[in-house]
């Protein structure tokens, strides 16, 4: 059933990379509980409709199909790196996760799990400390940013041949869309962009659309995709086993630490927006 949560409806969401919708086909999609139909009669035209035939506002950007079921306050977020000619755009494939999209976003922002979930890749047990970083909410764009994040990584990316201290920045552009900027192993003075566009299907079911804009001359597409999918699937087993399934915003339900500044800010931001979809309803009976 289509949600009536306005905070969720009034946002931009992707239904996938344009290649997920072959030319000449009509494919179903579900967004926020609403059954949609995506028709692509010719290469550069998409027609998205709801179950009752009502048209859905849709357009193409960053190689993805974007829609809204409501009236977003702002146009789609801007990714300047999209225009850089020496970047590779990598579409890593939609993966469904049985978890709230908000849990998926929060996991993406988290550094402390690198040594345990992405062992000997994005982190190692002997270097688990999360150093202080900075978070801010940028009022002009209503985006959350975490900057000056650092972490030692044995294999930071597909092209990495040795360990490095990766610099990270995180950017949450709306409740269900996030990207990070990190040091490319072969171009230490620039940033790779790794985005995760989340399509909330039901409150505890989401589809992740990972997307990258990277500086990499050596890896094959298959190699880059395999690396990203490996990371995402390592997270999936965690995401699907967090309880409660819906994100708790009530104080005391979970326990953040200093290293969780991003997630604390993210949850406060969601609360201010009165977001309900994917959020745990207020618990009156105590229950761990």
């Amino acid at each position, binding site marked *: 059933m289509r949600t009536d949560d306005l905070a969720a409806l009034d946002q931009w969401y992707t239904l996938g990379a344009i290649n997920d919708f072959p030319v000449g086909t009509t494919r179903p999609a579900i967004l926020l509980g609403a059954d949609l139909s995506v028709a692509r009669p010719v290469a550069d035209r998409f027609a998205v409709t709801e179950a009752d035939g009502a048209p859905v506002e849709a357009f193409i950007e960053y190689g993805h199909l974007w829609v809204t079921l409501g009236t977003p306050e702002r146009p789609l977020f801007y990714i300047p790196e999209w225009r850089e000619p020496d970047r590779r755009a990598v579409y890593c494939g939609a993966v469904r996760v049985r978890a709230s999209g908000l849990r998926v976003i929060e996991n993406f922002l988290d550094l402390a799990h690198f040594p345990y979930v992405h062992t000997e890749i994005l982190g190692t047990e002997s270097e688990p400390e999360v150093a202080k970083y900075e978070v801010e909410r940028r009022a002009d764009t209503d985006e959350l940013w975490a900057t000056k994040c650092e972490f030692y990584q044995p294999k930071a990316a597909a092209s990495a041949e040795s360990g490095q201290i990766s610099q990270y920045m995180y950017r949450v552009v709306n409740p269900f869309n996030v990207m990070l900027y990190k040091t490319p192993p072969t171009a230490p003075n620039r940033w790779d962009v790794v985005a995760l566009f989340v399509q909330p299907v039901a409150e505890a079911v989401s589809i992740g659309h990972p997307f990258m804009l990277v500086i990499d001359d050596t890896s094959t597409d298959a190699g880059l995709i395999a690396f990203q999918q490996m990371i995402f*699937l390592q997270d999936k087993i965690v995401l699907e086993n967090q309880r409660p399934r819906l994100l708790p915003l009530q104080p005391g339900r979970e326990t953040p630490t200093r290293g969780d500044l991003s997630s604390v800010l993210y949850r406060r931001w969601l609360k201010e927006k009165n977001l309900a979809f994917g959020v745990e309803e207020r618990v009156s009976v105590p229950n761990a």
Partner: protein
Amino acid sequence: MLRLHDYVLSGSCYKVRLLLSFLGLAHETESIDFHPGRQHRKAAFLALNPLGQLPVLDDNGLVLRDAQAILCHLANAYDPAGHWLPRDPQSFATIMVWLNFAGGELMAVSAARMISMLNYPGDFELQVLKGRAALRVLDDHLTDRAIAGKLWVSGDRPSIADVALFPYVALSHDCGIGHEDYPAIALWQRRFRQLEGFVSMPGVPDYF
């Protein structure tokens, strides 16, 4: 040189990756863009395997498909001590039964996983039911083995039957099937993860 056409998220490829590691066999890996690229359905790959499936193993020109067949070949060609595929009639037969089960009934877990994760067409509830039924059969067998003081599916050592069974047992969580109902399986898979040469894959937690 052994060359494995592989996909990082494939449980079937994982069967081969496991045995290659247990046997300590050097090999090259070619990453196939299974998703979203569907490279395994394109002409170049179909020339290698007309079934359009992974894994494919190229052993110096001998091109093999089917994870179970590949396990048999690797054990046959590269394990002179015969540990992974003993030839005495009873062990051989028992291993064949479970090897075929791993590539047969247990693959309902793979189907459920593909439907759930990658939006493959299919009846998710039905595949979960079939997967659970298969896990029950395996749990019963492992219960009997444990009562007889045995740790593995056949014989006194792990065999290619254990290798073929492990991935879709371990990946059952990916489609929402936990191991709460299968206590013998839970103990067996833990033992399997402690084997020397064990390698993990996404969805199979590294720690235990």
